[in-house]
């Protein structure tokens, strides 16, 4: 910009250069070093910034909603395909074998451990709950399994496959599948 033109556009009290207002929000570093010699830039260490991210969903359980309503009422529901004579412990409204719609049915509240583990680490959301015990529960007369927490044991040495377990329900429902959990029967 020439000196002459610069003089012409000199800001006045009423008319200033447009620009963002300087604020401290989001500023984490001041005086970022920068070399005079641009050919050294490829050796610069990478800049890593924090970037938090959170979302609130309106998550619908859709056709599976009765299962969660059941848990809130101390009922364990599965679904049954009459024609296939096949009962799903984890509910599905349509039978993948024949494509027909299934019917809701109450599951027994006693079952057996099909398999298990104890988690000493976990996803961030569950880290504070470690160690916790996961089991797949099998029920008499039911063809598929249900994933649940096992409470009331202290380690994997106290869990064995085939061991009998019974369902318990949270008094204050969170409308999550963890509203039901199992304890040794």
């Amino acid at each position, binding site marked *: 910009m020439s000196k002459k033109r610069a003089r012409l556009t000199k800001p006045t009290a009423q008319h200033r250069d447009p620009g963002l207002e300087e604020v401290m929000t989001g500023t984490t570093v001041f005086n970022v070093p920068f070399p005079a010699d641009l050919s050294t830039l490829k050796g610069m260490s990478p800049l890593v910034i924090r970037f938090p991210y959170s979302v609130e969903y309106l998550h619908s359980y859709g056709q599976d909603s009765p299962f969660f309503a059941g848990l809130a009422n101390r009922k364990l529901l599965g679904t049954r395909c009459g024609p296939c004579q096949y009962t799903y412990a984890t509910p599905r409204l349509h039978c993948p074998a024949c494509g027909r719609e299934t019917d809701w049915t109450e599951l027994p509240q006693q079952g057996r451990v099909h398999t298990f583990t104890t988690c000493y680490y976990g*996803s*961030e959301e569950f880290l504070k709950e470690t160690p916790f015990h996961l089991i*797949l529960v099998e029920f008499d007369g039911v063809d*598929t399994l249900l994933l649940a*927490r096992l409470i009331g044991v202290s380690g994997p040495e106290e869990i064995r*496959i085939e061991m009998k377990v019974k369902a318990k329900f949270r008094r204050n429902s969170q409308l999550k599948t963890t509203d039901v959990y199992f304890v040794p029967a």
Partner: protein
Amino acid sequence: MVSGGVSKFAKARPDATFQKMVKEAFDHALGDVPRLKTDRIDGSVASYFSDHFTRQLMAGIMATDYLGLCPKPNKRIEGGGATGGLCFQAAWESVASGRMNCCVAFGFETMSRVQTWKGNEFIALASDVNFDYPVGGFYSGYYAMMVNRHIHEFGTTLEQMAMVSVKNHGNACFNPYAQKRKRITVQDVRNAEMVAYPLTLLDICVMSDGAAVCILADEETAFQLTDRPVRITGVGTGTDMMRMADRPRGKVILAPNEKESDYRNLTYPGVHSFRAGRSAALQAYRMAGITDPLREIDFVELHDAYTSSEIQTYEDLALCRYGGGGRFIEEGHPFLPRIDYGMKLKKKGTIPVNPSGGLIACGHPVGATGLMQAVFAFWQIQGTIGRHFGSGELQLKKAERGLIHSHAGTGTYVTVSILERGW
């Protein structure tokens, strides 16, 4: 397949964006086929698993434009841990259908962008978020449940599982691209920190940043580009229900070398076996004309996210009977004949499995993993391991036909592809 390239897999690559890592692998692959100019490439396929890791939607096109492959066709392929294997097959489909003469499959993942336990959460979101994830979503936990049932059904031992880790870490000592290169013992594996009983830290693969590229072409183009192309003679893809809880308990899908009487009292797949893996293998075997995989395949690069899943996969691939996976490793069959693992093995080297070190030692940057396996298998068959790894310890004497296996979820998507010497 005419060429392949990989970036070194590392715990973190803050020095590069995903586009730059893909570019490294792409240039690595192009460097091996100087006759291939980018104007001969008809299009590309992108492989990456989670949008959460990049916090970038449509990352595929950003890599495509970085590589200079616009305005040619590109699309993204995604299927959890099997993303790379699915992408490899998508590139094969592009060429086999006649749509393209030359197609690039590229894959990447940038897992270091979040803390490890957040990363585990992202991975666990690849399980049913209504019924599985809220209970304590954690893939190591899911695999631990599956192997506990495998142990119950078949008597598989924790020491047999640990041997897988010893083998794969041992192999990786000679693979400069591997993330973890160290000699360990069965005791080291069992003494390592428990993650999900019975899986310890050394039974489980690690998260990585990395990229891999495979370049596929039709036969005529291939021979114009290289004297040693590798032919893809079989592809198979299997699926299974997302929730382990829903898996049926029926009959084994028999491989050509099995009979019904082998499995009188076994319900299948239950949660102890991967029906998708068996299904993928049988499709690929049929296409490649393989009836006795143990004898007709020279080596295998399989998806060993867990030591347990490597054992389960020996069985799915019919390298041994269902239930025989533990004994298969104990006897030494999947070890490399010439590597010293510090243990006595009776039948070492029948069919080397994961000569590269597998996911357990190389790392598992999800979208790159399946393509990395293809690159390592390609170099094995070409006989160029020595040149690429800087030493020939891992080069197999007979490597004319290899199998690559990519695996997602708790066995929800599995791909098997057969690669053979094509010259």
